[in-house]
């Protein structure tokens, strides 16, 4: 028994030293957020295998990274907007060595050096997108849906879908009442809860795995969706429209970050550079429908993608748009409590 264990150790030790061993990049990303083709081409070009693991909420990703802090399970992750600042401030991230990154200058200047990471020392923008209204025009009669407020109408009873994301759902409730989606005021949050609980009887499901699916499956006709999901959904179901609600959409920017204990930061840098190539960025935006911050890539996009308002909103679409910010832990607890109340309320 002992001998066997020793032999095993020896074998591990040997492969550890061998230069023949294929390198691995552990990529931790949102589900359906990177075309397989990109991973394949990266492996082809660099010989580095990509292990792709997914999550469906920033909270899950954050908890996992924090817990696995020491075991170095992931080399690259893709947190949304304010999670970049949160993780940066909690010292969970490795600085990105700009000298190893090619193509950073191609990025839209409006999407770099933001407050979440003033000099982009820790993050490189990957994609940005919005959360707006999905409407299945084939199944909806009457007035067109133009505002979040419309979801409360009786005609949508039992046909509404919300994302399974606490912050986003409350964002909608807050905006309908005219408050900021980043409110930390307990009274406003409670008011949003009251408002949302009126909507609950109409809500059929919450979904953040693949928010387009309940629409495609015919379970829901109207509700929240991420713009990329709406674009992908439209390929299958022509009648699925993406609408910019009057109260304002929810905007977010997802960025590559390297967790502090990454085992292979070298490969992570290589991957970021790979994705920043205009051709690759364009491919990603075309495939999954979110907007690339890479201006050089935008020139390569076919017209029907570049002019697709769902992916690339115009200035009027962005009126009232709001990025999510870190609301702090106290407010988070208030949200969390009302969120459970909302979901268990009958």
């Amino acid at each position, binding site marked *: 028994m002992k001998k066997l264990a020793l032999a095993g150790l020896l074998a591990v030790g040997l492969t550890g030293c061998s230069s023949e061993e294929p390198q691995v990049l552990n990529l931790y990303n949102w589900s359906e957020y990177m075309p397989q083709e990109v991973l394949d081409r990266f492996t082809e070009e660099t010989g580095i295998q990509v292990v792709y693991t997914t999550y469906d*909420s920033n*909270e*899950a990703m954050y*908890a996992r990274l*924090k817990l696995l802090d020491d075991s170095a399970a992931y080399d690259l992750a893709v947190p949304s907007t304010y999670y970049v600042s949160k993780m940066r401030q*909690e010292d969970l991230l490795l600085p990105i060595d700009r000298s190893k990154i090619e193509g950073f200058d191609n990025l839209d200047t409006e999407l770099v050096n933001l407050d979440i990471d003033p000099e982009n020392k820790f993050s490189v923008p990957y994609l940005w997108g919005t959360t707006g209204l999905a409407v299945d025009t084939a199944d909806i009669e009457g007035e067109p849906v133009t505002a979040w407020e419309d979801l409360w109408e009786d005609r949508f009873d*039992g046909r509404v879908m919300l994302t*399974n994301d*606490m912050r986003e759902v409350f964002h909608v409730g807050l905006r309908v009442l005219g408050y900021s989606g980043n409110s930390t005021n307990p009274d406003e949050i409670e008011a949003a809860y009251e408002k949302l609980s009126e909507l609950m009887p109409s*809500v*059929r*499901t*919450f*979904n953040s795995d693949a928010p387009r699916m*309940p629409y495609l*499956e*015919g*379970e829901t006709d109207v509700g929240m969706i991420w713009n990329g999901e709406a674009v992908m959904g439209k390929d299958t179901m022509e009648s699925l429209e993406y609408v910019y609600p009057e109260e304002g959409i929810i905007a977010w920017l997802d960025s590559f970050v390297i967790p502090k204990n990454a085992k292979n930061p070298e490969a992570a840098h290589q991957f970021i550079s790979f994705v920043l190539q205009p051709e690759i960025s364009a491919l990603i935006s075309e495939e999954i429908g979110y907007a690339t911050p890479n201006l050089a890539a935008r020139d390569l996009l076919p017209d029907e993608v570049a002019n697709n308002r769902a992916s690339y909103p115009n200035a009027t679409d962005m009126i009232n748009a709001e990025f999510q910010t870190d609301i702090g*832990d106290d407010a*988070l*607890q208030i949200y*969390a*409590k009302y*969120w*459970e*109340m909302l*979901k*268990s309320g*009958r």
Partner: protein
Amino acid sequence: MHSVMQQPFKTAVLILVWGWLLFLVLAPNLLVVGASVMTRDPVSFLSLPLNLDAYRQLFDPLYLEVFLHSLYMAAMTTLVCLLIGYPFAWALSKVGKQRQLILIFLLIVPFWTNSLVRTYALKLILATNGLLNSALMSIGLIDEPLQLLYTEGAVIIGLVYLLLPFMILPLYSVFEDLKQELLLASHDLGAGRLSTFIHVIVPLTLPGVLAGVMLVLLPAMGLFFVPDILGGSRNLLVGNVIKNQFLDARNWPFGAAASIVLTVTMAFLMFAHRLSKRRIGEEGA
């Protein structure tokens, strides 16, 4: 000679079993108990001082409501499992040995597939344009698809589907042990079928019923992915609350306290099960 050969083997097995229990059962549970009495910390999840705030929070009307609703759904699941499982196990104990093996085999086969995958499969069946609705529509039973998915019913169907074997197997074993002589004696002493069932069969199979209830009720409150997939993330179970507290709200002490309550409930049920078994054992002797 024999014992010399057996001794190391026996020691190895004992070490394995005890090691398993210590490191994979006792230690994690102690960690959970520890977490439940600590203070929530936004940065490192847990911190001192020790206190019972998390348990106090459990009595918040909101969580009581979730707990009761969860209990209600688990109880419905258990009831349905019992109603299907009891006659099933009875019939199973009556058929020939060959057929018995095949039936038990069929009961176990689904376990070879991950339960998450099976739950997604169930979703395909229950969906608005899923298999069940299209079948019902094609035979003309309904004109409009039924809304089955994302309902309380769908969650209960999912739970029953996943947990039914855990009800059948303990029941099957008590039915196997049911002595025919006792039934004959009851008959000879003038008891009718119903009376034999109520006064002889039910008491004798009660340990199996309790074992089945125990194996179904508690897991039914914890299988958080079933409401997530089939209930549209509504109709929450205690398992969902625990998961949300750990992942979304990052309130570990509270999540830990909730899971301790589940464990304690389980222990209580096991204790009741033991008591009933002992009572019946004495009566049998």
